[in-house]
């Protein structure tokens, strides 16, 4: 070869210094390919040759150390880089990032502010400052920084963080606004789409929620968060088979998700496959033993299966985790009634009536029990209480009532000699075909108090409420086999307690 590497090496004056950045490109190449072993070898060689002066080699070494989890060491190396070239904002940014990862948010903010002095138009600095402020709970400052980051350059991540701030502040409308903008900016980001869909779901805007969740599923058919939310919406509309096929896809990806198994179980329940429902619920309960919604559903399914002793245990466990829900006490009371423990059943009903403000079923079931015990006066009081609630519901919303519930209420009204109650006039006119929709709207009414911020919780709550729906259909078959209840004093009323108990069991 013509070119020798050591042309000037043998001149006697002084050795030529190697170019510091000679192999930076190679270091970078190995680094981006994640070939860290080769990268470290080149870095070592380079640092030896330049006696530790090659800034980029130190920089990449620190990056690798940080990726490997040695944050403290990486911090030291980045600080060394910052000494070697104090004018470089990049080094300061990395120092701050290491501090951030170590949880020293205040120190990180200081260094980021230093870096911002060197480079004012960097979205990354603004964004990271915003994130630091979020951790320090200074939401206003965080918001300012994130907005200025968006102003410099728009990134999905900044939108997500900004949305999070509004969610933390509890400002759903603002959060939705931010996510809307984000989706406009990057329409294929499934995380943004799912979050937006779930926010709409939380606000009860089902059309839009479904639209966004559907979009997510077109881009990523295996996104389990979206599947779960969309599935629960289908479940609410009674499309159990469609929901099940969706869940099957999700079950391949996340096999150990308690809400998923809960929803699958309630699909089976809707299809009257009770054993499968119990199997799936038990799996969900195994995965999340402290989740009251699963226990609630387990109690419900066991009531339907006439396994009152088991139902009692699940329901009392659910009450231990969620002592503020009237419906749970009502179900417990139904179980106790069937276990012939009337005293405790009454106490449970008392608690249910005390906690519940809007569900007429609680009062109706209580009235039936009292009537069967011969306490007509108390039964009448509960019946009137129920009428009040029915009236309230009728005027406050366009709710329609379960026809079976109405039937039982009418019979009880007759027995109590209150005359034909007029509260039901409007719903009674409704044709039978409206069965499904009626139950749907009822489910949504329960959804509100159950809903939580969590996507999964949301999906779950709708399933938990949904569980009550199909029993309207299932109940009739059980009528043929009246459960052991104390017999009625008047023979004419014989059919009624059976029906009432079927009703209570369902609810």
């Amino acid at each position, binding site marked *: *070869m*013509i*070119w020798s*590497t050591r042309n000037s090496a043998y001149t006697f*004056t*002084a050795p030529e*210094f*190697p*170019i*510091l*950045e*000679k*192999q*930076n*490109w*190679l270091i*970078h*190449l190995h*680094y*981006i*390919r*994640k070939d860290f072993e080769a990268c470290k*070898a*080149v870095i070592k060689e380079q640092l030896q040759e330049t*006696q530790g*002066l090659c800034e980029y080699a130190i920089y990449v070494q620190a990056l690798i150390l940080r990726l490997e989890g040695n944050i403290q060491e990486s911090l030291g190396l980045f600080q060394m880089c910052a000494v070697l*070239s*104090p004018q470089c904002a*990049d080094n300061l940014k990395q120092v701050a990032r290491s501090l951030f990862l170590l949880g020293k948010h205040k120190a990180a903010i200081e260094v980021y502010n230093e870096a911002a002095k060197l480079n004012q138009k960097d*979205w*990354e600095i603004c964004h990271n400052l915003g994130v630091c402020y979020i951790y320090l709970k200074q939401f206003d400052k965080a918001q300012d920084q994130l907005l200025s980051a968006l102003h410099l*350059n728009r990134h999905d*991540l900044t939108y997500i963080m900004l949305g999070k701030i509004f969610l933390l502040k509890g400002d759903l409308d603002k959060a939705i606004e931010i996510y809307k903008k984000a989706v406009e900016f*990057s329409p*294929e980001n499934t995380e943004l789409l799912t979050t937006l869909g779930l926010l709409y779901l939380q606000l009860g805007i089902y059309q839009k929620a479904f639209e966004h969740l559907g979009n997510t599923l077109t881009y990523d*058919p*295996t996104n389990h968060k979206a599947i779960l939310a969309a599935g629960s919406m289908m479940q609410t509309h009674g499309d159990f088979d469609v929901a*099940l096929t969706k869940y*099957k*896809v999700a*079950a*391949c*990806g996340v*096999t150990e998700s308690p809400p998923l198994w809960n929803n*699958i179980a309630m699909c*089976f329940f809707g299809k009257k496959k009770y*054993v499968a429902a119990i*199997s*799936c619920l038990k799996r969900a309960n195994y995965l999340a033993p402290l989740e009251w919604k699963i226990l609630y559903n387990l109690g419900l399914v066991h009531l339907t*299966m*006439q*396994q*009152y*002793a*088991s139902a009692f245990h699940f329901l009392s466990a659910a009450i231990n985790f969620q002592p503020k829900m009237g419906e749970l006490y009502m179900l417990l009371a139904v179980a106790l009634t*069937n*276990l*012939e*423990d009337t005293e405790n059943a009454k106490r449970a009903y008392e608690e249910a009536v005390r906690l519940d403000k809007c569900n007429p079923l609680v009062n109706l079931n209580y009235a039936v029990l009292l009537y069967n015990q011969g306490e007509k006066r108390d039964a009448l009081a509960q019946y009137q209480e129920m009428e009040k609630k029915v009236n309230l519901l009728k005027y406050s919303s366009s709710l329609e009532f379960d026809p079976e519930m109405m039937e039982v209420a009418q019979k009880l009204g007759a027995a109590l000699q209150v005359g034909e109650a007029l509260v039901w006039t409007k719903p009674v006119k409704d044709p039978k075909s409206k069965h499904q929709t009626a139950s749907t709207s009822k489910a949504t009414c329960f959804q509100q108090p159950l809903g939580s911020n969590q996507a999964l919780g949301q999906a779950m709550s709708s399933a938990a409420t949904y569980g009550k729906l199909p029993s309207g259909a299932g109940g009739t078959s059980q009528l043929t086999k009246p459960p*052991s209840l104390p017999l009625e004093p008047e023979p004419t009323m014989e059919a009624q307690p059976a029906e009432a108990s079927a009703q209570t069991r369902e609810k």
Partner: protein
Amino acid sequence: MAATSSLQADGDKGKSSEASSKWLNAVSDPMTNIHTFPACMALADLHGDGEYELVVGDLGPDGRQPRLKVLKGTVLRESPLPALPAAAVTFLMESHEPQTPAVAIASGPCVYMYKNLKPYFKFSLPPLPVNPLEQDVWNQAKEDQIDPLTLKEMLEGIREKAEVPLSVQSLRFLQVELSEMEAFVNQHKSKSIRRQTVITTMTTLKKNLADEDAVSCLVLGTESKELLVLDPKAFTILAKMSLPSVPVFLEVSGQFEVEFRLAAACRNGSVYMLRRDSKRPKYCIELSAQPVGLVLVHKVLVVGSNQDSLHGFTHKGKKLWTVQMPAAILAMNLLEQHSRGLQAVMAGLANREVRIYQDKALLNIIHTPEAVTSLCFGRFGREDNTLIMTTQGGGLIMKILKRTAVFGEGGGEADPLLSQPVKLNVPRKTRIYVDQTLREREAGTAMHRTFQADLYLLRLRAARAYVQALESSLSPVSVTAQEPLKLHAVVQGLGPTFKLTLHLQNTSTARPILGLVVCFLYNEVLYALPRAFFKVPLLVPGLNYPLETFVKSLSDKGISDIIKVLVLREGQSTPLLSAHINMPMSEGLAAA
């Protein structure tokens, strides 16, 4: 997601074995020992005989033996390179016949040009301007106007403030020990200080004609964050552009003298767009990740990021699409099938796949025995559509695209999750379960009553035991407000003498406890203790006080008994704490 991805891979394997008929295997040699990356591979007709050859700038197995390798047919020729190659391209220098392209290898601060595979010209980057202040300081040192210490101080001052970084010589000087400074200055002061940079990437740009065989300029990216365009004949610098960061990958379209667009992916995770008349970038794409490859497909700029995804951007930096990869991207290059006018992106992945994408659509997946680290597609030998890949272990794989092969959309991947019916894994229930269910239906009330009765009994017993423990102060923890105490005892030894250690702890937060006594109650026939009654020292809160005493077993019949320990307050007869210690049997006596 692990299960999903593995499932996907399985689904794809089945697909690609049938789709692999698109390719003919030409060469598969795991031992060629070529270690390179896409920027160091080029295909060209170097001898003008219509036989295209493969030019590779090889790093060598451990990055120490850089070589230029040229593969013609199956013959491999190689010659050593002076330093590691950063890029290798082939380009036409002049338009007159015979047109044989030259090979340019960028390495360190130089570009080495070969014609007919013989060294032809060496271009060196011009040195960077040095800081005039630094120059002044060294000049003063040269004339011995300042001593080394002052020199050091001044240089440090320059380093803190100046925009232009110091030269290597000054940086080295700042590191030298005090004793060696004098010698260092004497040795180096006569030399003029220099700042040299290196080439990080290189590509070609047609000079004034768009034809296939038009003269091209070299475009160099340097460590000093600059882009240079070189004249193909005189090797003078035609244009100079500066970037905010160090360029890693370059993509160019157009002609230098007419209009061109240049995309430079940089180390700060951004891609900058430049045009002919712009000295500085016009648009900027911030990836928030490191780019691992840059390919221009028609008018779409495809960027691979180290977060395992491919992004498509317009020339103005608007994001068009994103595709997630199953593994890290190692290499990217353009696939261009002239006969069908097809342009696509090939990406070599760490999971031993090569995926071919046209925009978002996956066209084909090739499975390779090793992860592919560099790849290129084009004319090799006399075959138009050849895919050449080198692998992590230094192997070489060549595949020829069948002339009948047509890439159809969705050819590589049908969604396996939606097409395959998936069985839901519902746990089965046993016969016993069903029987139990029936039993519960029949006798639910009785079961419930029995359970409740037993539960009450259990609670009653627990409460009784608790009351008893409280009454006799048997618990190891005293909860009285004045003396919160904790006691536990350890017996050590085989006998006949045992060591009994009482650990007493004051659990109050601040108050010390004074005036406690310990009393042992035991059967005097069986055991002897030196002191059956002693005072406890002052107990400082939180500390653990071990109180030791020896117990001698007197019985030789192997009988053991209980020793009661009582902790009392002086002057009170009810104990604060008491403990029953089950003494072990004396084994020492039995052995004797």
